[in-house]
Structures are given as structure tokens and as C-alpha cells.
């Protein structure tokens, strides 16, 4: 029976809920949508078992608003949706950014645009997850590729949210959300968990946006001994509206800087066989699985192929991608869209490295074979380089 408590065979969507609970989350507000609805269903069952609360709101706009509100009251909070709902959340995502309220937004991507094909996978929201809300801002986006990731990486997601007082996007896809596989649900050590810093000043002195040089201000919950003013309008340290240009400058930079400047802490990648490569496959999310399979197959054929999995998508792992560009003769980017991540790779390619995509948007997973074919093609085309 101990075994059973540890090892389970469940969907990614369900593991996300276990991960959230392990991270300390106790509040879910959402609006069901395929292929994320299992996150809602599992949350509705599991949260009250842990004294948490599940509420279904009238739409996605209200859902993200409710989790921001709940987080302001001190509960770690999350929601889950897919493309159409994620688009609807964009305005209030800005509130979480501006008021610096930690929360986690799960987007289980499906085939779009618009209603698209609800039950089919895609990775078409990669750039939206970075730029979907209006105005300048920074954002953290993580992407799981296994059910184990759905558990473990969710803990990271909450940790980053709390540490940097920011919304974190958990950018999954239908493949990872719906796949069932083995996952170890472990009891998480207390010191693995980050909780937002709390003020220790006198109540009168507390300013919810009085950021330190490299960090963020402590955030007291509503109902504590502090009085907290939070606002989605441009505001000063105390949370009062403020239209002074220098204040706007300071805060808007802060929203980006607090993330970009902590690149090292936030950026996670996984490297497979990169010590000695000709060709690096740069992948994220469900497509990583295709890339890894392709890598194994290619290695069997004696080809020096490695995989760089981007686990953190934003801030974009520039250093690691640059390393890959430098160290490889070619970089292949398989993604289930028309070439979104590859834009970022190309932006960094000052090295004349061959960069090519394997793209699929027909709602089917990229097969390892397609990647193998591309590897062969690239080898042929650039035989002078490889020769």
C-alpha cells in the first residue's frame, strides 16, 4: 500500500493537481475547457480534501480574477484552461503582473486558432504566452513534457510565482495533459517550498511595492495586521495611483527586470547527449518526446544527435540556445506550430549555424521519423559542413 501512494498511473492533468497541492496551493477557480477539464475535475475532488476550495466561475475572465483575489488573501491559487480561455484571460493576466500577485495559470494547448479542434494537440500558444497581454511586461513560462513534470515542475511554478510575485504560465499541451503514465507522487520536503516573503516592519511602515534592488517587496495577505493596497493601474510603492513618468518608468522596467535579471535562477533546460553533437534538437513540451525518440533512433544509426529541452520557455533560455548554436553544426526545432520557437532561436543565431524547423499543425504529434528525415535532409544539404 505504501507503494501505491507513491507510484500512480495518471494523466498529466491530474498530476498537475497533485503537484499544485504539494506546492501548497489551496484555491482553484476555473471554467472547464477541453483538454484541460480534468484539472478542474481533479481539483474539485482533491482540494476540499485538503481544506482547499474549488469554485467554478462564470468564465475565464472571472476565473483568473478570482485566483488573483484569493492569492491576495494569502492562498496559493491556480487555474487551468486552453487557448480560447487563455485568450480571454489576457487582460487580467496584466493585473497579476501589475499588482504583482503570485498565481499559476495552466494552459493545456489544443489545435487552434479560435475554437479549432478541441481534442487535438498543438503548441501554437508559445508566443502568445509571452506577448498575449498588452503593454510591456515580463513573464515566466514553464512547459512539462512528462506526467512527472506535471507534478514536479508545478512545484517550481508555484515557487517562482511566490518568489517573484508574478503569474507563472504552465504551458502544457494536449499530449502531456492527457497522456497517462507512471508518476511518483512524493511527499514534498518543506524546504523545497517557497512562500512569498512576509513583511516584518511596523504596520504603518509597510509598503506593498517597496521593492528592494534585486527583488520584490514582501506581500502580506489581506486580513493580517498589515493594510495592503493592490492595484492594476500604474501605482507607487504604497499602491496609490501615480502618473509621474519616473514612477511609470521604474515600475514597468521592474516587471521585466525582476524576471530577466533572475534568468539564472529561473531558466531550466535539460540536456541530452549534448557533450558531443553535430545536430541539436531544441524542443519543448510534448514535442520533446518525439525529439528524444528521434535522438535515440539517430544515435543507433551512429549520428551525433542531442536534445536540448527547454523547460523554461520564458525568459527564453538564450544562453543555452546560444551554446547549442555554437556547439552544433545544425539545430533542428521540432514544434507543433508553424515555427514560433524557431524565431527566437534564429534571433540568437549569430553563428551561421543551420537552423531548421520540423513543423506540424495538422493536430497530430510530430513523429520521430519526421525528425529523422529532417536530420538526414540537413546532413545532405550541408554535406560541406559535415563532410
Amino acid at each position, binding site marked *: 500500500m505504501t507503494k501505491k501512494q507513491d507510484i500512480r498511473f495518471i494523466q498529466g492533468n491530474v498530476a498537475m493537481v497533485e503537484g499544485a497541492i504539494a506546492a501548497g496551493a489551496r484555491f482553484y477557480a476555473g471554467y472547464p475547457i477541453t483538454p484541460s477539464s480534468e484539472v478542474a475535475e481533479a481539483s474539485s475532488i482533491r482540494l476540499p480534501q485538503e481544506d482547499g476550495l474549488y469554485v467554478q466561475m*462564470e468564465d475565464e475572465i472571472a476565473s483568473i480574477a478570482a485566483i488573483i483575489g*484569493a*492569492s491576495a488573501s494569502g492562498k496559493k491559487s491556480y487555474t487551468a484552461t486552453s487557448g480560447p480561455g487563455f485568450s480571454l484571460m489576457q487582460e487580467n493576466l496584466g493585473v497579476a503582473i501589475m499588482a504583482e500577485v503570485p498565481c499559476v495559470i495552466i494552459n493545456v494547448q489544443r489545435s487552434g486558432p479560435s475554437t479549432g479542434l478541441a481534442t487535438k494537440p498543438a503548441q501554437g500558444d508559445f508566443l502568445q504566452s509571452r506577448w498575449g497581454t498588452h503593454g510591456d511586461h515580463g513573464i515566466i513560462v514553464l512547459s512539462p513534457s512528462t506526467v512527472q513534470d506535471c507534478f514536479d515542475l508545478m512545484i517550481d511554478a508555484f515557487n517562482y510565482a511566490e518568489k517573484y510575485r508574478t503569474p507563472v504560465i504552465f504551458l502544457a499541451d494536449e499530449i502531456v495533459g492527457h497522456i497517462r503514465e507512471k508518476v511518483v507522487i512524493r511527499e514534498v520536503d518543506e524546504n523545497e517550498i517557497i512562500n512569498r516573503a512576509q513583511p516584518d516592519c511596523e504596520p504603518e511602515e509597510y509598503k506593498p511595492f517597496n521593492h528592494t534592488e534585486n527583488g520584490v517587496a514582501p506581500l502580506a495577505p*489581506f486580513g493580517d495586521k498589515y493594510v495592503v493596497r493592490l492595484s492594476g493601474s500604474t501605482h507607487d510603492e504604497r499602491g496609490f495611483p501615480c502618473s509621474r513618468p519616473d514612477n511609470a518608468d521604474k515600475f514597468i522596467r521592474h516587471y521585466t527586470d525582476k524576471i530577466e535579471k533572475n534568468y539564472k535562477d529561473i531558466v531550466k533546460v535539460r540536456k541530452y547527449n549534448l557533450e558531443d553533437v553535430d545536430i541539436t534538437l531544441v524542443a519543448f513540451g510534448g514535442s520533446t518526446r518525439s525529439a528524444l525518440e528521434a535522438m535515440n533512433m539517430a544515435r543507433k544509426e551512429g549520428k551525433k544527435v542531442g536534445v536540448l529541452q527547454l523547460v523554461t520557455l520564458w525568459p527564453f533560455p538564450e544562453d543555452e540556445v546560444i551554446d547549442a548554436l555554437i556547439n552544433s553544426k545544425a539545430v533542428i526545432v521540432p514544434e507543433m506550430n508553424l515555427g514560433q520557437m524557431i524565431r527566437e532561436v534564429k534571433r540568437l543565431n549569430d553563428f551561421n549555424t543551420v537552423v531548421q524547423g520540423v513543423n506540424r499543425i495538422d493536430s497530430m504529434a510530430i513523429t520521430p521519423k519526421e525528425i529523422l528525415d529532417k536530420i538526414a535532409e540537413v546532413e545532405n544539404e550541408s554535406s560541406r559542413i559535415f563532410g
Partner: protein
Amino acid sequence: MKAQEFLVKEKFPLFWCAGCGNGSVMHAIVRCFEKLNYTRENTVVVTGIGCWGKGDDYINTNTFHGTHGRALAFGTGIKLANPELNVVVLMGDGDGATIGGNHLIHAARRNVDVTSIVVNNLNYGMTGGQYSGTTPCNKTTSTSRYGHIEHGFDLSGLVAAAGAPYVARGSVYGIVQLEKFILEALKKKGFSFVEAISQCPTHFGRLNGMKEPAGMLNWIKENSVSVSSANQLSDSERENKFILGKFADKEKEDYSTKYLRVIREAKKIKEGGK
């Protein structure tokens, strides 16, 4: 704490136009805070965007200033995550009844224990006096220069129909009654709603021939009737009046209380094994 102490005096004078009703309603609210012994720490004022949505700039409690139309959704999360808090949601008629209408009716239905106070000045003050979902038919606004052809909501009637246990409409002119409604609403366990008919002299007043700041308030005064006397009016007569009074006042178990049962049930099942 005294009413005056709930105000952020350093931010005075108020940014609202001369004669705008917002200040009067805000004053009534903090008087109620005093009467109910609220503290700054146990109270959260939640606002949307609009002139009335700037009310939180002047209130000294915890505040959450969200987006246009979504104040109730933020407020729902705030309250459900900590049911000990007094959550007071301030919305304009654009905010609360036009873009935010869905959150309003669902909050009424869901019965989360928050108090919403909509200042209904019959137009979008903040953005320049365009028509809103409560603008009366035939009136002039900056986007209905040829006369408005839609009918405004009977907002309190609508919220009552959505299931809210406490609904009342007052006016800035009838400030004493309005304050009483606000007090009752704050006391109510469950979702409560107060509509305050108010004046926007700068836009609605000016565009409808009421030039003096006091003019629109006077018009409100002259067109108000009580709920009881409204029963004798025809539909179209009703439409041109402000019907003041209580639209609902009943007991209904609130969401957080009910959720305790969900938790009990869930734990039973959890402990019973999976």
C-alpha cells in the same frame, strides 16, 4: 474607528467633479464602517475602473483596484480565500452592470458573502459620458446625440431576479435611506447589493439640460418614487422613475458556510480511502 479615519485625508480634495455624487456615497460607506466597527485590517474595498472605481484611492482599508467590470470576480476570490474579511465591492453602472453584468448576476446567484455598491449615474463618467446599460431611453449622451434608443436596466430588479438575498436601491438625494441600505447590506450574511442613483453633472447632467452641478440631483429627487407606490404605475411609467426601496431581503446560506459541508464530505471520502 471613526468614519473620518477610514479616509485617506492626504489625498483630498477628491478628484471628482464639483457636484459629483461619488463623494456622498463614499462618505456614507465609511460612516457605516464606523457603525459596524470594521477595522482597516479586516476590510477589503474592491473596485473596478471608472470615476466611482477611484473610490478606493480615498479609503484607508485594504484595497484591490482591478480591471473594468471584474471587481466582483476579484472580490469573490478574496472573500472565499478568507471568509473572515469584510469585502465591499464598489462599481459604476458601466463597471458593474454593463461590462460586468455577468459577474453581477452570477455573484448574486452564487451567494458569496460580499457587499456590492453600484453608483448608478446613468452613464460612463470616466470616459466622457457615453451611454451605459442603465442610460434611460431618449436621453442624450456623448454616443447618443440623437437620443438614446435602448432601455436601461432596472438593475435592482435584475439582481433580485438573479437570486440575491439582499437588494435595495437608494439615491444620493435620499442619503439617509441610502446609508441605511448600505448598513443593512454590510450586515447581511450572503451577497448583498445596493444601487445608489447618483449624479454625473459633468456629462449626463450637462448633456441633458441640467447645467448646474445640483441640477441632476434635483432631477433625481423629482423622479423618485418608493417601491410601494411604484406598484400602481404602468410599465412605461415605471421606466421613467427611480423606484427606491428594498427589492429583496431574505435569508440564504452563503457560499463559504455551505462549502464547509463540501470539505466535511470530501474528507470523509478521503479518509474512507480513495
